[in-house]
């Protein structure tokens, strides 16, 4: 009986946890919408002009004003806005003259491709580097890692991109230049997923695949550097916490080999917090890609956003902001949930 009661209590708590999670996530999205609404309708002196552009005729202007419902109360406008966003309507872009939602769907895979390769580089190099620094605390490896991590907070991404292009593309010729493909490879493979590497592999066209990879490797490595710096630093501090525990000393006294002490006894418990860290840096990479894409003329969401910014194309700016913000929130919340599910202490 007692166990059943406690089970029920626990299940109830779990349900409340999930319900609370949904409510909090929904409220965060509503907050995001409120911010983009505020930026789009309240901040500009003339919201109509910021949507239609300054080359619009008076008739277009009036039509847009009525279509945007600017003659109605602010609260009504806001709920209209939320409603249309929920239906996937983000308005029309003045520079591409197409629905913003379609544009975003088309460009997002390019960003996803670059950020994913970036986070892979960051995790594959960053986690071992952090563990290594932790086992050599205070030695030169640790010092080098420290400076490296601080550089990750101090180097402008766009500058590193330009310097990378000057060295590895113009100087050494190791990688391809800006863009996703050389011009004579374009349109050779059908765009199934818009992720160039997958499309090329699906089509079995390996020359396109290698060309795409050589375009991708530099921007992805630069993005990877920033997540590497962060992931290595966090791994190091988690590892140091673990390695100072008594069970590590016990394992060593029992004669467990050092690699086993580090990778099994030490590393296993930090996998859960590491997932959160990796999730956070993945989200940060999506943000960092805005600058990198501009430098590398990478046709992703960041490039779309900056082009829209320069054309004062407000619907496109807000649409891109919404999408990046939503992905950011989702990744944050998912890593939160994963943490709770995977951490045995939270059960």
């Amino acid at each position, binding site marked *: 009986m007692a166990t059943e009661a406690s089970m029920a209590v626990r299940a109830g708590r779990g349900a409340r946890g999930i319900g609370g999670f949904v409510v909090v996530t929904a409220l*965060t999205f509503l907050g995001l919408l409120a911010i983009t609404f505020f930026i789009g309708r309240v901040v500009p002196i003339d919201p109509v002009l910021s949507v239609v552009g300054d080359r619009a005729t008076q008739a277009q202007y009036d039509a847009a004003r009525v279509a945007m419902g600017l003659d109605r109360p602010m609260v009504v406008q806001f709920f209209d806005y939320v409603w249309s966003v929920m239906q996937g309507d983000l308005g029309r872009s003045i520079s591409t003259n197409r629905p913003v939602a379609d544009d975003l769907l088309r460009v997002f895979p390019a960003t996803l491709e670059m950020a994913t390769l970036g986070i892979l580089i960051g995790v594959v190099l960053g986690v071992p580097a952090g563990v290594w620094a932790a086992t050599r605390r205070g030695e030169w490896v640790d010092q080098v890692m420290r400076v490296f991590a*601080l550089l990750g907070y*101090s180097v402008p991404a766009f500058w590193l991109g*330009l310097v990378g292009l000057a060295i590895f593309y113009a100087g050494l010729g190791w990688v391809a230049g800006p863009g996703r493909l050389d011009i004579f490879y374009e349109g050779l493979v059908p765009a199934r997923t818009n992720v160039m590497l997958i499309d090329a592999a699906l089509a079995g066209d390996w020359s396109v695949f290698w060309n795409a990879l050589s375009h991708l490797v530099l921007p992805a490595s630069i993005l990877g550097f920033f997540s590497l710096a962060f992931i290595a630093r966090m791994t190091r501090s988690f590892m140091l916490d673990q390695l100072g525990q008594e069970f590590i000393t016990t394992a060593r006294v029992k004669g467990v080999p050092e690699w086993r002490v580090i990778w099994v006894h030490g590393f296993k418990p930090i996998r859960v917090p590491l997932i959160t860290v990796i999730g956070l840096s993945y989200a940060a990479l999506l943000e960092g890609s805005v600058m990198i894409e501009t430098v590398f003329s990478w046709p992703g969401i960041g490039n779309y956003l900056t082009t829209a910014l320069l054309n004062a194309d407000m619907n496109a*700016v807000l649409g891109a902001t919404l999408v990046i913000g939503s992905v950011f929130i989702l990744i944050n919340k998912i890593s939160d949930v994963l943490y709770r599910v995977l951490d045995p202490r939270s059960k």
Partner: protein
Amino acid sequence: MSTRDWLLDDSPATLTQANLGRAWRMMSALMRNPLAVAGLLIIVALLATALFAPWIAPESPVGQNLQARLLPPSAEHWMGTDELGRDIFSRVVYGSRITLMIVALVAVISAPLGLIIGAVAGYFGGWVDRILMGLTDVFLSLPKLILALAFVAALGPGIENAIIAIAITAWPAYARIARAETLTFRNAEYIQAVRLVGGSHTRIITRHVLPLCTSSMIVRVTLDMAGIILTAAGLGFLGLGAQPPLPEWGAMISRGRTFILDQWWVATMPGFAIILVSLGFCFLGDGLRDVLDPKQGGEK
């Protein structure tokens, strides 16, 4: 009694003596950390450069000389010249003023804003807390750079709008810290004592709550400086921040983009200035945290 003994006296006679003694202890702890000293030196150098720019820079930051276009770094032009023949070193020197102005204004706007919001939320609790922290969390869960970009897009390009946009995205972190600090002492006896003698809420918050939040706030603001500099430079790079011919470092890199393959120095040199100054703030922030806020440990 020497000055040092007076400063380190365990039973200071006056408030001034106690404060000076505390400052002295912090200073000497900071001086034992080589990275923090390096950071402090870099920032002092930045301040000096900004202050004495007209005497340090050999040439005018805006004067053009089309006969000396795109010259590589040499004894005469340490960092070379740009596409209008302007001395890049002089522009970088004058650019320090813009960078300093941006970080100072962002800090002056966003730190007090976050401090007050967080302290009010923590002090009153209940619904005030829930609403203010809900707002803070929404801002915190959004990407800062994107938010700043969107704000600048709505406000229009320009250095003032860039500063406003960055400040709008920077305050939530400070609100969180101020709230956490306030929660630890809102029920302390000395706060209740002030309340008993009839101190108003405003007086309690401004005189007794806020001062206790400042040390962790200083640490956080210093650590955030690098991020603020990078965001400002990014806005400048995209053409949304400082407008030409202002020698803002990010905008200078953007101008040099066209020449990166042949005249690498135009884009590269301002970048070194950004890195140096950001690193300086990182080093100092790390050191300050170890001194002022030991409970947070040595990690970010």
